[in-house]
């Protein structure tokens, strides 16, 4: 009998709602399901997905859009027994509901894993969900529909101010207003009723300013539940949770509050019969000792990866096994964990923060204000032994911003206060500036609704910066600064010394980094979770990785320009190197990065990607190879690498291609191994030529070339051959002129976005080939593969931009603003007739 098959519903493209985390979790979950003996099929159109290419996890990749028709076709093709609908965000839930309503699931006897259909229906329909929450007495915010002023007045009296008034079925533009007193209420109700086609308004209790908390629960099919983590947002409700700085474990909550929320989270998870992971978000009103359920997400999301990295609990692996029908008590984790680790609630002896990364370059003016609409794309994780250390690590990647608050110093008092009241991008620095100007934690907490605790801690950092400023070279202060997480670079800037000099003073005074394991027992058990972070304490737990080893400096958070194509590239290289027997060491600060998957990294350092921290790890590990993104010239020049380590640059650069032409463009993608030049593919750009800034964000292949065209292209490629010396991946960009001539526009490094796309189209492991040519020439088999790539009927690549979601007008559709991409692939059918 054929193996049971499971279909995983993936994503179309990374966007603001979900980014690289879903691909990472897909990899771990699919690998886990495959290990349980299931055949795995993944449907996705994300060219940057590594899972689609990962044979150790996904047996069949279906690169077609996630629509109900396509899902039905795939069901008819593979006859899966199970479907995983939890790896494609909300879109997957909507599609699955459609598929279910068509009767396809029932007809084929397909079972949904993770979330039963009734739950998916409730998540898709908030009214149904709130009815369910209501029947189980879960506290939700008060909401009422009224059609006259008197009823509105009564309702508001009952739910209290502030309240939100919203028109139902508005005649023209939608109307909503937040009201704080009777006058405002009166006006809003009058307008709201007038504007409504139904003559009705919705009155909602406003939760703005309350603490936002997320409880993450795991549940198995037998009903066992455990709390994976509790995450507290520093920013109150009003700022989207994805745009808030999040902290785990929860810092400012009483045990009583924590346990009450835990109870409700468990009850909801049970009621919704979730198997796997559930995220329950709460708003906590400390003054009234009341809390509200605000959101429930029974699917994998950015918090799943964040808490996985923060706790050291292997979320993807466990959820995969839960999907395969295992119970928490029966799950056996890898050798590094003790028995029953899967059913032991993780505890932490460290603080982890998640700091959002916004696409700042395209957000201006009012668009920098934070609201309930998410604006950040990626995030970084900072782990430390204190909140300060964790925060310092997370913000150390910020270029041009640091604790000196140079930009904030220049703000007028009015600007500062307005910035405090209306949160905006870079808020943390504003909070600190206010402290620096002498506002007390108590006042600031009142003004911003950020808990006083955070100000008290931030004040410690500012105080130290002030002291450092006044005492250059003071070793005692240096020790304190390092202990709180302040990077050498900032100390160097404050003291007017070089970073190297500060490091030398540090070493001279025995102020050295030590590494602690990120494991889920708080030191209670001897574990060997190969994940580390640094601090400045007594004990050092990191052991040198056995040889041969390769250390990879990650591409960092998801940002505009490359999306997760850089991570895709690294993941493929890592997979190749593991295959060759290397121990892989990955340094990254992006908690959602696929490179941190235990399938790819033997050892993980969750550290800032700055010279100081990288140098320190290189100093311990002495890897055989050190892989650094080519764009990190700062690292390349600062790192001091011993002779036995070979430094390799990876072409992980944010795309800076700037060819502009009025004519259609062809790209010829090339691989040069030092001896031979291989032509991988020719693609054509298809974006409207009217768009003058003509860049390759949309392309297709194959390209129909006339014999004359072919000849011209061959000639241009031949010319390249003579100019190339360094092995690598290249792209020859050509313009097609009206008279039929094809001219060379430039020879550039092959963009990683294109590498990801081409690998899938040609069924070639191009990153793997790259890692081969970086050290050697291609072997016979590889040469053969390169010369005979898969033929396709048609493949299309479309970049996705964040402008619409961010309400950015006149956004430039250029490579540097790419958020993600979608591809369509129509493989060539080899008909034998």
């Amino acid at each position, binding site marked *: 009998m054929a193996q049971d098959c499971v279909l995983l519903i993936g994503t179309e493209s990374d966007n603001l709602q979900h980014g690289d985390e879903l691909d990472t979790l897909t990899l771990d979950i699919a690998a886990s399901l495959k290990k349980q003996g299931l055949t795995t099929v993944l449907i996705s159109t994300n060219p940057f997905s590594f899972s689609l290419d990962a044979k150790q996890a996904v047996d069949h990749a279906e690169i077609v859009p996630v629509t109900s028709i396509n899902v039905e076709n795939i069901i008819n093709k593979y006859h899966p027994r199970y479907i995983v609908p939890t790896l494609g965000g909300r879109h997957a839930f909507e599609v699955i509901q459609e598929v279910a309503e068509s009767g396809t699931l029932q007809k084929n006897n397909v079972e949904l894993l993770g979330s039963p259909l009734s739950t998916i229906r409730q998540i898709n329909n908030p009214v149904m969900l709130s009815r369910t929450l209501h029947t189980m007495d879960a506290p939700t915010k008060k909401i009422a529909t009224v059609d006259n002023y008197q009823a509105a007045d009564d309702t508001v009296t009952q739910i209290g101010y502030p309240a939100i008034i919203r028109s139902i079925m508005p005649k023209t533009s939608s109307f909503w207003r937040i009201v704080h007193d009777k006058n405002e209420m009166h006006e809003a109700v009058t307008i709201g009723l007038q504007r409504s086609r139904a003559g009705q308004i919705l009155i909602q209790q406003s939760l703005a300013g309350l603490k936002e908390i997320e409880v993450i629960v795991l549940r198995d099919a037998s*009903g066992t539940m*455990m709390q994976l983590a509790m995450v507290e947002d520093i920013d109150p409700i009003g700022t989207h949770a994805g745009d808030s700085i999040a902290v785990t474990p929860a810092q400012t*909550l009483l*045990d009583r509050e924590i346990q009450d929320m835990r109870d409700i989270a468990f009850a909801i998870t049970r009621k919704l019969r979730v198997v796997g992971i559930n995220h329950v978000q709460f708003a906590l009103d400390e003054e009234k000792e009341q809390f509200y359920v605000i959101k429930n997400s029974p699917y994998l999301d950015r918090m799943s990866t964040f808490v996985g990295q923060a706790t050291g609990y292997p979320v993807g692996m466990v959820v995969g096994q839960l999907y395969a029908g295992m119970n928490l008590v029966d799950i056996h984790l890898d050798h590094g964990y003790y028995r029953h680790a899967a059913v032991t609630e993780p505890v932490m002896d460290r603080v982890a923060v998640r700091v959002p990364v916004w696409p700042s370059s395209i957000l201006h003016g009012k668009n920098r204000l934070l609201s309930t609409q998410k604006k950040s794309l990626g995030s970084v994780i900072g782990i430390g032994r204190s*909140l300060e250390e964790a925060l310092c690590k997370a913000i150390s990647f910020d270029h041009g911003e640091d604790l000196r608050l140079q930009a904030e110093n220049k703000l007028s008092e009015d600007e500062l206060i307005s910035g405090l009241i209306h949160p905006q991008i870079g808020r943390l620095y504003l909070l600190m500036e206010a402290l620096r100007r002498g506002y007390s934690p108590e006042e600031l907490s009142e003004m911003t609704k950020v808990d006083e605790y955070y100000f008290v801690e931030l004040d410690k950092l500012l105080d130290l910066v002030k002291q450092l400023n006044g005492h250059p070279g003071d070793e005692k202060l240096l020790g304190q600064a390092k202990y709180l997480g302040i990077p050498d670079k900032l100390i160097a800037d404050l003291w007017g010394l070089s970073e190297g000099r500060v490091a030398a003073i540090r070493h001279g005074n025995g102020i050295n980094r030590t590494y602690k394991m990120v494991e889920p027992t708080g030191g209670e058990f001897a574990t060997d979770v190969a994940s580390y972070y640094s601090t400045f304490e007594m004990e050092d737990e990191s052991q040198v990785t056995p040889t041969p080893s390769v250390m990879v400096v990650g591409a960092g958070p998801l940002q505009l320009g490359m999306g997760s194509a850089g991570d895709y590239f690294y993941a493929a290289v890592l997979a190749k190197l593991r295959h060759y027997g290397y121990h892989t060491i990955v340094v990254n600060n992006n908690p959602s990065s696929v490179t941190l998957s235990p399938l790819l990294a033997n050892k993980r350092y969750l550290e800032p990607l700055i010279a100081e921290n990288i140098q320190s790890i290189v100093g311990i590990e002495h890897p055989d190879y050190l892989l650094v993104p080519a764009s990190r010239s700062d690292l390349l020049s600062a790192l001091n690498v011993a002779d036995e380590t070979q430094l390799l640059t990876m072409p992980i650069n944010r795309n800076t291609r700037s060819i502009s032409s009025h004519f259609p463009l062809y790209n010829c993608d090339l691989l040069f191994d030092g001896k031979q030049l291989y032509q991988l593919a020719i693609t054509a750009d298809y974006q409207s030529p009217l768009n003058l800034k003509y860049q390759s964000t949309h392309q297709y292949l194959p390209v129909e070339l006339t014999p004359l065209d072919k000849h011209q292209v061959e000639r241009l490629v031949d010319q390249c051959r003579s100019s190339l010396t360094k092995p690598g991946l290249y792209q020859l960009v050509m313009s097609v002129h009206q008279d039929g001539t094809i001219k060379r526009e430039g020879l550039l490094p092959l963009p990683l976005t294109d590498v990801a796309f081409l690998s899938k189209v040609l069924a070639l492991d191009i990153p793997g080939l790259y890692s081969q040519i970086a050290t050697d020439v291609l072997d016979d088999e590889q040469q053969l593969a390169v010369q005979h790539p898969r033929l396709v009927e048609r493949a299309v690549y479309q970049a996705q931009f964040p402008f619409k979601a961010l309400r950015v007008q006149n956004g430039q559709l250029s490579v540097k603003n790419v958020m993600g991409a979608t591809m369509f692939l129509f493989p060539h059918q080899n008909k034998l007739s």
Partner: protein
Amino acid sequence: MADRYLILEDGSVFPGTAFGSPAVTFGEMVFTTVMTGYQEIITNQVFHNQIVVFTTPNIGNYGIERNIYESIVPTIKGVVVKNVANVSTNKKRRLTLDRYLNSMNIPGIANVDTRALTHRLRDAGKLLKGSIVPVPDEHAFDQLQATVLTNQQVAQVSAPKPYPNPDVGMSVVVVDFGLKNGILRELSRRKCNVTVLPYNATAEEILRLDPDGVVLSSGPGNPASLRASVLEMIREVETRVPLFGIGLGHELFAIANGCSLKPIIPDHSGMNHPIKEVITGHIVYATQNQGYILTHDAVDRSQLYVTYVDLIDGSIQGLRHRDYAAFSVQFFPDGAPGPDETNGLFDEFMDTMRVREGR
């Protein structure tokens, strides 16, 4: 930076910074992996004579809250942590942790590599004595070595004389072995009319109050160090009225019914172990603070059966008597801090009393 030190009897020194009281104290070293409710931990009498190491890095973040004490006068010997925050947030939380500990004569030491310390305590092979001192010199070590810690913890923390906690419901006697307020809070919630008696109350003294049920409270120390009269009291009371043992109360109930316990090293304090309810197979989580464990082979099965088991260390976490309406749990079903999942045991106790009463 260091201005205070934690020294251990194995000779190790952990530098740190001072908070709380400047007193020099001695105690048994234990660590807790609990991440919530530092105030409840610090005020729990179960830690009497112990220096508690928090593995969670931050405490003091919300100050001291007036409604969540677990005892009036905490008797913990010291607090060891990575960071302590100096916060008092509102009118319900006027005190900072630092000021509170100072007023209670409890020293604290912060900026300690608590992870290294935890590893040391975990791997020491025996319960270590420790001391929080201003200078880690020979004299300090001599004093530490010379210190003999009491084994009469219960006598030191139990209420010296009876007191009532009146309400209008069932009459319950709580025998105080180092009571935590959580137990009284749960009984209050169920409107029990409680009388708290000292640990050495006799069966006669208890039964004279004609209670509907008796609770043996949690408390500190080695159950074997209590006088045999306590066991006699339990053996008598369990035959007469419903009995509910918690923590040390559970350990005493087990010994009174033919079991023997052995010490675990280090003491276990946490709330994250999976605990299996034997009859249903359900997994629950609850706060555990124990220095002694009861293993499967040490249970006298003619008298008792096992109701809960810790899946990690295999220790028996719950017992029920075959003949009498008496049961006990090793963990703390009142939480504070900790999950509420086993809170229903108090309801079970109420039901048992009602059945007995025929109500």
